[in-house]
């Protein structure tokens, strides 16, 4: 089958990306502005032999997704603000049990019920820190409908590679807009490494090396492993009283992602358009569309990351050191905090734009001119 050119909503493209990546299980709970993903999955999954189930809430949705993943099936859920909040405990459980799974968050305005039908980027920190404890995840942010397709696939691939939950940190702008999308057939699909079927595994959760990703002994293949959200030793057994076990475990859970930050950024890609200017604009997701347009008019350099987490401070320093940097985001300042830590904070400025829409290019240009005096 050749590639297919379509004119789709971002949410629809996300569902198509999931199917292309091998997702065969979706559990979810309808919530604006992500619902079209569930709707499309409910139609498409049975066509490809997959299972769609609508759960009783978002807590159950991510639980079922994690269960499906341990049954050996690639699984996803999709949600927005309030639902993402409810999923946080199981984000932590997935991180702790090293369960590959994809969570799509089509961000809307908050806190609380906020602006259900309007765009926001105010879950950037929640995606990374929303569950309790020390952990890392992967979060990618699409700016186009094509990227809703492509980055959903990347989410699955990195989730499978690293055995971590991966978040597609989308927003209502790209979730709801329609654009041309090429449903590529030649996508690279990564599957989790599995141990030999029937093999008895003495140490399913090795504590070292500190960035190790062990093969996943999914259920029903004779490994007879115990998987727990408690701090566990190499055998997977609870070891809550041993400080050294806990330290080594959480260090590995973090390092397996952190130490691969550059690799993830290089592989997923980013835009860096260098121009003769002292000013660099930084933006991601739906908001970046405004900023790319403004930067062109301003003749300013622009950096658009697609990987939001893990943040690669060295990369940001390498690209943006020496610039006056203006970060534009649809919140009151989240990504900017990471940029400030990477660079001389004095040189980092914020145009925080909550409210439901990205700022117009004119608004960004005005802010850039103000900074430049």
């Amino acid at each position, binding site marked *: 089958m050749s590639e297919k*050119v379509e*004119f789709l909503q971002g949410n629809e493209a996300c569902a198509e990306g999931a199917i292309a990546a091998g997702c065969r299980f979706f559990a979810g709970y309808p919530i*604006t502005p992500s619902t079209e993903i569930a709707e499309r999955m409910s139609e498409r999954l049975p066509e490809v032999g997959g299972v769609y189930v609508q759960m009783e809430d978002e807590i159950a949705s991510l639980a079922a997704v994690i269960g499906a993943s341990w049954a050996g099936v690639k699984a996803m859920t999709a949600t927005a603000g309030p639902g993402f909040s409810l999923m946080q405990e199981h984000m932590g459980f997935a991180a702790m049990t090293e369960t590959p799974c994809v969570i799509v968050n089509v961000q809307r305005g908050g806190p609380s019920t906020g602006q259900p*039908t309007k765009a926001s980027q105010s879950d950037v920190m929640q995606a990374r820190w929303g569950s309790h404890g020390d952990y890392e995840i992967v979060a990618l942010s699409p700016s186009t409908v094509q990227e809703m397709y492509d980055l959903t696939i990347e989410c699955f691939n990195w989730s499978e590679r690293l055995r971590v939950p991966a978040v597609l940190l989308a927003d209502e702008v790209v979730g709801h807009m329609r654009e*041309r999308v090429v449903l590529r057939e030649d996508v690279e699909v990564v599957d989790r490494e599995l141990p030999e079927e029937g093999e008895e595994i003495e140490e399913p959760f090795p504590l070292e090396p500190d960035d190790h990703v062990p093969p996943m002994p999914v259920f029903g293949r004779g490994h007879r492993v115990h998987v727990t959200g408690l701090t566990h030793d190499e055998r997977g057994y609870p070891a809550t009283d041993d400080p050294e076990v806990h330290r080594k475990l959480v260090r590995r859970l973090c390092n397996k992602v952190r130490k691969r930050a550059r690799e993830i950024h290089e592989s997923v890609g980013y835009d860096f358009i260098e121009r003769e200017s002292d000013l660099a604009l930084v933006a991601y997701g*739906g908001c970046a*569309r405004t900023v790319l347009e403004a930067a062109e008019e301003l003749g300013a350099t622009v950096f658009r990351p697609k990987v939001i987490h893990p943040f690669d401070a060295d990369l940001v320093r390498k690209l943006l050191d020496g610039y006056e940097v203006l970060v534009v985001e649809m919140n009151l300042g989240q990504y900017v905090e990471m940029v400030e830590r990477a660079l001389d904070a004095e040189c980092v400025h914020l145009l925080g734009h909550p409210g439901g*829409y*990205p700022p117009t290019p004119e608004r960004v240009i005005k802010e850039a001119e103000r900074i430049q005096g």
Partner: protein
Amino acid sequence: MKREVRISGFGGQGIVLAGVVLGRAAAVYEEYNAVQTQSYGPEARGGASRSDVIISDEEIMYPYVREPDYLVAMSQEAYDKYAPEVKEDGLIVYDSTLVEPHRDDDVEHVGVPATKLAEEELGRRIVANMVILGALRELTDLVSEEALKRAVEDAVPPGTEEINVKAVELGARGVRE
């Protein structure tokens, strides 16, 4: 070339579909870029409906319509709300069955009795959206007739392709004559 199009009316007229068809014609069957957005939630309740399309031969970054080149108005409420935003050298195409125009500067207005034509000629009020879309295409050449028809065939409910294509042709004829 970059054109901003706003299609507006009330719920049930197929306003969103008209925008999707136009965007699809431009993005899939022509070499253009196109972005379609629409009203959601409270904005889309109470009857009002809006579907925006930007068509350009360059990359479209900022995705929202700021100053429409073309406005399609299929209800009085939509006309009243959006007509003042249309560019001075723009064009307003309105359903003359339902809309009484009143913008008093010299923005070009074309009235098409889309709902009446759909009902009387095709016996289906529901395809008035395609009648007016056909008229818009004929007046603006935003996309080719062929591209628009193919997009209609893709996007309308199965079994209704023929009547919808006829509606497009009807609208085009309506403004040619």
